[in-house]
C-alpha cells in the first residue's frame, strides 16, 4: 500500500509523552516504551509505569514480527472524507515481545485476514514527517 492509496485518516498528533515513538518510526525503527526501573513494556506510551510507578523510561526496539490478534473491516464511510475509501481493514497486531498495536495490513485482502496470521512491520511515510508502522504478511 502506498501512502497515496490510504484513506484520509487523521494523522497522529505527537506529544511530549510519545515523541520518541514517532521519531524512531521516521528512522525505520519500531520502539516501545520500556520502564527503566522494572523493564515493563508500556504501549501506548504514557508518563508513569503502571507496574511500578516509575517516571523513568527508555525505548526498546522491537523485532517487528507479530501476529494478527483481532481485526475489523469498516464498510460504512463513518467520516465524510472516507467516502470512496471503504471497505478498509484495521487490525490489532500482537508483537512477539507482547504489546498490542493498532495498524493496517498492507498486502492482505479483507477476506484473507485471519486471527493468528504472522505479520511483519513495514514503515510507511504519510507526509509532514510522520511515518506509520503498518504490517504485511510475514
Amino acid at each position: 500500500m502506498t501512502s497515496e492509496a490510504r484513506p484520509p485518516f487523521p494523522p497522529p498528533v505527537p506529544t511530549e509523552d510519545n515523541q520518541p515513538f514517532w521519531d524512531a518510526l521516521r528512522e525505520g525503527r519500531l520502539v516501545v516504551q520500556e520502564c527503566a526501573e522494572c523493564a515493563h513494556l508500556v504501549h501506548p506510551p504514557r508518563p508513569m509505569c503502571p507496574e511500578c510507578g516509575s517516571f523513568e523510561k527508555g525505548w526498546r526496539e522491537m523485532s517487528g514480527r507479530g501476529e494478527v490478534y483481532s481485526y475489523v473491516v469498516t464498510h460504512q464511510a463513518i467520516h465524510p472524507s472516507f467516502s470512496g475509501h471503504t471497505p478498509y481493514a484495521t487490525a490489532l497486531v500482537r508483537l512477539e515481545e507482547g504489546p498490542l498495536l493498532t495498524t493496517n495490513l498492507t498486502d492482505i485482502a479483507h477476506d484473507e485476514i485471519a486471527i493468528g496470521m504472522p505479520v511483519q512491520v513495514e514503515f510507511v511515510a504519510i507526509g509532514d514527517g510522520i511515518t506509520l508502522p503498518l504490517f504485511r504478511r510475514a
Partner: protein
Amino acid sequence: MPSPLTNRVAIAGVGETDYSRESGRSEMMLALQAIKAALDDAGIAPAEVDGLMTWRVDNTSEAEIAANLGVKDLAWFGDINQAGNVGAALVAHASAAIVAGLANVVVIYRGMNGRSGARYGRGEVTGRRGQGGSAFTEPFGLLTPQHGLAMTARRRMHEFGTTSRQFGYVAVSEREHALRNPRATFYGKSLSIEDHQESRLIVDPFHLYDCCLETDGGGALVLVSAERARDLRQPPALIRAAAQAGYARDREFIDTAAASLAPRFWAQAEVAPSEVDVAQIYDHFAPFVVFALEDYGFVERGQGGPFVEGGGIRAEGGTLPVNTSGGHLSEAYLQGMNQLIEGVRQVRGQSTAQVADCHLSFVDTGIGTGALLLERAS
C-alpha cells in the same frame, strides 16, 4: 454485612418524551419535558428538586435546568465523563448523596437530538483529530466507539466460538419486545434472523441490525429516600445495589468492564445472578448483550450465544428476559436512560412486556461501567 446503600434510596418517578428521528425542539426542551413528566409521575413539585445530574456528553448544564425548574438551592450537581455509558453510575452517585444527606430530591436527566443533531456513530462527532490517545488508533481508521467494540467482538468470537447468527437472536428478541411497546421506534416492524444476517455490514463483524438506533428524545429519573418514596404516587423501585467500574488495566479486547464489576456488584446486592427476574443491558451493539450475560455471570463464558439462540432472553418463555422495551436496538437510543426507565417499570408491574411477579430488576448501562439492581418494595 449489607451495604449502607442497600434499599435506602428509591427511583420514585420516571419520564420520557416521544422518541423520533427529528424532534423539532431543543435538547433543553427535551430534557425539561422528560423531567416534568418524571416529577408528575412521582408527585413532586419542580421547586423541591435540590439535586441535578447528567452525562458529561449532555449539552444542557445543571444550572440551565435549575433555572427552568425554579430550583432555589441546588445542593448537589455533577456529571460523569466517559461517553453514553454512565447512566447507572449517575444513579450510584445520586444515591450516595441522598444516603449521605447531601440532597433530598435528585433528578437525573438526558436530552439529546441523537439523530437530527450530533450522531454518535459518526467519526466527525466522536473523532479527536489524532490527539491524545487517539494518535494510536485514528491514523489507522478507528474513529468511533463501535470500532474498539468490534475489535473485542471479533476476538471473543475467536475465543469462544460465538457466531454472528447468535448475535442476531439478540436483535430478533428485542424486536419482539418492541412490537409490544407503542413508544418503540420499531413498533409494528418485525425482524427475522434472516433480515439480520442479510443486512449490510457497518463495521464487520457488526451488521446493520447489530447497531443501536439514533434517536431524538429525553428521559429523566427522580430519586428520593426510600422513606419518602413510600408516600408518593408510584410503587417505589428500591435501589438494592448500584455501582460502577472503569478500565484500569491495559485492554486485551476480551474482558468487558462487567468482568471487574460483577463480583463486587453481586456482593453488594447479596443476590446471585440466577435470582434476577429481568434485565436491561446496554445494547449499543447486539454482541455486547451476549458478552454482558457472560461477564456478569448470568451464564458461563461461551454460553451466551447458545443462550440467546435458545430464546433465553425472550419475554415469551425466556428464563431471563432482556431489554423488554426493545432496548437501544428497537425502542430508542437514549444512552441507557430508556433502559433505566424500563427497569423501573418492571418492578412496578407497568412494562408492555411485563415479567410475571417481578421482584428483582437488573439494569446495566455500559457493559460494566455501571449497574443497578432494583427491588420491588414489599
